[in-house]
């Protein structure tokens, strides 16, 4: 008996192209994740991908994925350019949390969740940052106390994108207060909508309601929902953050289709900047032409950087922490590109005809939000620490809480 010949990348690409053209809607620019009904729409779209055999291209076959190489995923993403994709599944669900589950989940956890994610039934979020501080992630205060076969969870998490409309979270909580901070943490799978969990939305500067804060009051979590080992949650969190840098920087193999929108979509802002130059009748202005070209150069460098860093990490030429370089670059790029957009928009950035959404308005509202990429997923300052210390081997910063039982550490 002969086994069926594996499909080549080119054959896969051709099949994907045909399917995409027949099945995916054309992309509208600046599709925001908080548009009413958008999440349900994306869940259905994800299900459609799954049914057609285009979901989880690089996820292992025993987790319900297709088990194909990144070349297949790249081919699909290239073919999907310009079409609407369930991009809110990319970050954090697929690129960060499902990826972490592949690395650390038990067989039972993987079987239970990854196929469900690929079918569009589960959106995930990460419950990491706390109101007491985000950069010092290992200093988290949310506690999980063991009680027989369960843990009892109390505390609060914040800055989780889209938690209200999501289903599951990975949550980092302190399970041991008698050891130094990194050694007393455990990562859990948490069903969001259950007794004891309160989710409140936070209104952001651009008016959107994507971020949430959660409060946990005696929430029961079974021991079987521990990811990795008890008290070894930092190992899981570190890997999660590596996946996050890759996913946010654009170098994850687990995400599908380009993300568009104010969080990761530099391809969209490139069009925006060109549109702005034309809409403001400055396409002939020498200064504006320099700015448009600068924005374009940054986009090209950014794409080249993603390729370099992700390939370099994959083949061992660059350390895993080099993802921080990509993350910092992407964040800086967002800042500069927003600045360019605002500069070109000129006076039209301040006011616009009621009810209209000219590119100048998009530019000015986007600029209110521009630091978000420099804050989320580890601030620029943390990325600079990682680059200097972990990539370049410079001395670590002094930490007053090193080697001290966490219950004795001074806190604000």
């Amino acid at each position: 008996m002969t086994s069926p010949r594996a499909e080549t990348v080119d054959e896969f690409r051709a099949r994907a192209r045909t399917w995409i053209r027949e099945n995916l809607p054309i992309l509208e620019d600046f599709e925001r994740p908080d548009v009413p009904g958008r999440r349900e729409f994306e869940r259905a779209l994800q299900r459609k991908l799954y049914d057609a055999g285009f979901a989880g291209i690089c996820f292992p076959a025993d987790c319900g994925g297709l088990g194909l190489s990144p070349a297949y995923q790249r081919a699909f993403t290239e073919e999907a350019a310009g079409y609407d994709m369930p991009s809110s599944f990319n970050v954090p669900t697929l690129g960060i949390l499902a990826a972490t589950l592949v690395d650390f989940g038990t067989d039972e956890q993987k079987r239970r969740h990854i196929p469900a994610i690929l079918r569009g039934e589960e959106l995930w979020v990460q419950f990491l940052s706390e109101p007491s501080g985000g950069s010092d992630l290992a200093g988290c205060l949310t506690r999980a106390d063991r009680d027989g076969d369960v843990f009892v969870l109390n505390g609060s998490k914040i800055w989780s994108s889209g938690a209200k409309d999501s289903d599951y979270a990975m949550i980092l909580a302190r399970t041991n207060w008698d050891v130094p901070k990194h050694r007393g943490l455990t990562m859990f799978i948490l069903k969001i909508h259950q007794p004891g969990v309160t989710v409140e939305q936070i209104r952001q500067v651009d008016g959107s309601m994507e971020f949430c804060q959660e409060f946990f009051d005696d929430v029961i979590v079974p021991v079987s929902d521990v990811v990795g080992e008890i008290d070894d949650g930092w190992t899981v969190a570190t890997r999660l953050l590596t996946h996050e840098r890759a996913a946010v920087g654009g170098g994850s193999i687990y995400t599908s289709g380009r993300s568009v929108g104010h969080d990761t979509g530099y391809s969209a802002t490139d069009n925006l900047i060109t549109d702005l130059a034309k809409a403001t009748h400055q396409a002939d202005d020498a200064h504006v032409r320099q700015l448009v070209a600068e924005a374009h150069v940054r986009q090209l460098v950014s794409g080249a950087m993603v390729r370099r860093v992700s390939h370099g990490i994959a083949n061992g030429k660059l350390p895993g922490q080099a993802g921080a370089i990509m993350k910092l670059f992407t964040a800086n790029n967002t800042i500069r590109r927003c600045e360019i957009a605002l500069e070109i928009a000129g006076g039209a950035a301040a006011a616009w005809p009621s009810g209209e959404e000219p590119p100048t308005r998009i530019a000015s509202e986007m600029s209110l939000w521009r630091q978000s990429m420099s804050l989320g997923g580890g601030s620029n300052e943390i990325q600079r620490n990682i680059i200097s210390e972990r990539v370049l081997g410079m001395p670590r910063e002094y930490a007053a809480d090193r080697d001290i039982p966490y219950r004795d550490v001074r806190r604000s």
Partner: protein
Amino acid sequence: MDVDLTEEQEFFAETTRRFLWDQCPTTVVRALEANPDGFDRAFWKAGCELGWTSMLVSEADGGGCLSGPGRGILDLALVAEEMGRVVAPGPLVPTNVVAFALSHGGTAQQKQRWLPGLLHGEQIGAWVNGSGSVVEAGAQADVFVYSLGDRLRVIAADDPAVQVTPWEGLDLVRRYASVVIADDAAGEPLVGSAESLSRIALVLQCAETCGVVDAVFEMTLEYLGHRYSFGRPLASYQALKHRIADDKMHLEGCHAITTAAARAVADDVANAGELVSAAKAWIGSVATDIVQDCVQHHGGIAVTWEHDIHLYLRRATVNRAMYGTASAHRQRLATTILGTAS
């Protein structure tokens, strides 16, 4: 350097690096300041035996490379980067541009006349990029490629219609000359475009600058680790660590876009010119800033003649200026994106 090199390329880069470390420590570079040619002929010939002028020449013409026909730019970029790392002397860009132009657009007779000398390092080529312009290795060249109208032409340097005046320059060993070729000179036409020569020159220049900045960055990192102030190494100060991190990020961008441009030229993709201009626009605007920041990290020693960092700063600055500044390349890109300004 590209993170996706083949084993063969890695070996070649390593061999080139060892040769250069051995042959041109900065003491040699400094000594060559007094040499009117700026390079030693025996050194150049030895480099040519390693393939420094063969990679853009087709196998039929006696050339060859590792990456396959038409893709030699990928291998030559490795040489350029290694040369940058030691601020090496030698007319790498101009000779290769001329060798490429002859191999891909010359007649059998023209090839026979010039290519063996260029391939073996006995002769030097130079590229007159624009009329009456300053030309690298102009006074050392035996043969020039230049443009007349839209056509490329080739002419011997000793032709009476060619006027060469050596200039002084910023780099200690890179020589420039003013070259004027009369319109009625008896230059012979070549097939090919100035644009394709420009792409080669820019990819090599960007790769060399990557090597220059890499070397400066490495020496700075080492210095910060060993230099103590207030009882602790400079490398332990977060203010400096964060600047180093930013420099590293910009430097990785230089490598990334240079690789992208080199691959685009090797594959002759439709937007190759765009990527090449993007590479120069990026590197031209960040490379000297990284080096200058490294000068700042070193302190006063870095603005002395004695310290080698100025050799690197000179090379980076010259590269920034030649073959189009960053803003000139942004102008080119703006035309691609927005059309010609009215």
